[in-house]
């Protein structure tokens, strides 16, 4: 693989269900991010990780959790999905210089 991959591409989920969105990068970037993109609100940061083993909260962290067990993977978990979490989710990563964030292809999530 080259760059950042996300899975699934899209998902329909019943409210109350647990869901993990996967993100993997092969660029050996230390920093990784999760954003959600909603019409009229733009991209908003959910959680981030500076390096493996550390995570931090972004602008809209409630209802989401992340883990960073290794450099490559940064899964985002919705413990009990709610309809307001319907969105497009983007994972991103950046190198140590922090110059540019590279985005994955996104996961489109619909919570009913």
């Amino acid at each position, binding site marked *: 693989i080259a760059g950042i991959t996300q899975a699934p591409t899209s998902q329909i989920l019943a409210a109350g269900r647990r869901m993990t969105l996967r993100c993997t990068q092969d660029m050996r970037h230390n*920093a990784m991010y999760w954003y959600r993109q909603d019409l009229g609100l733009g991209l908003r940061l959910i959680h981030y990780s500076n390096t493996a083993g550390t995570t931090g909260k972004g602008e809209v962290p409630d209802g989401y959790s992340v883990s960073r067990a290794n450099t490559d993977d940064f899964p985002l978990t919705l413990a009990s999905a709610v309809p307001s979490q319907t969105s497009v989710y*983007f994972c991103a990563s950046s190198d140590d210089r*922090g110059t540019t964030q590279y985005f994955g292809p996104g996961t489109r999530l619909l919570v009913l």
Partner: protein
Amino acid sequence: EDKVVQSPLSLVVHEGDTVTLNCSYEVTNFRSLLWYKQEKKAPTFLFMLTSSGIEKKSGRLSSILDKKELSSILNITATQTGDSAIYLCAVDRFQGGSEKLVFGKGTKLTVNP
């Protein structure tokens, strides 16, 4: 509160026109300003600007930062239908040992043939 404001929110032009997209910001610990192009899926990187007054250019696209005015513009000359996209401006700020991007809501550009 950090914020990034883009204008216009949407723009419809004809092929061959020149457009200017605007981005203004109010953030603490500014590091750089970035422009992204988003078509159907993920945003793709266009430019990163760190110094005032130095134009970055790539083909028909160019961008410049004005740190005094806390703003940036993205110019597209001789527009083509393939330029139709949402253009996102983001400001990179350093906080808590990590850089974080604050995004504007984007400008939706439609180029008609």
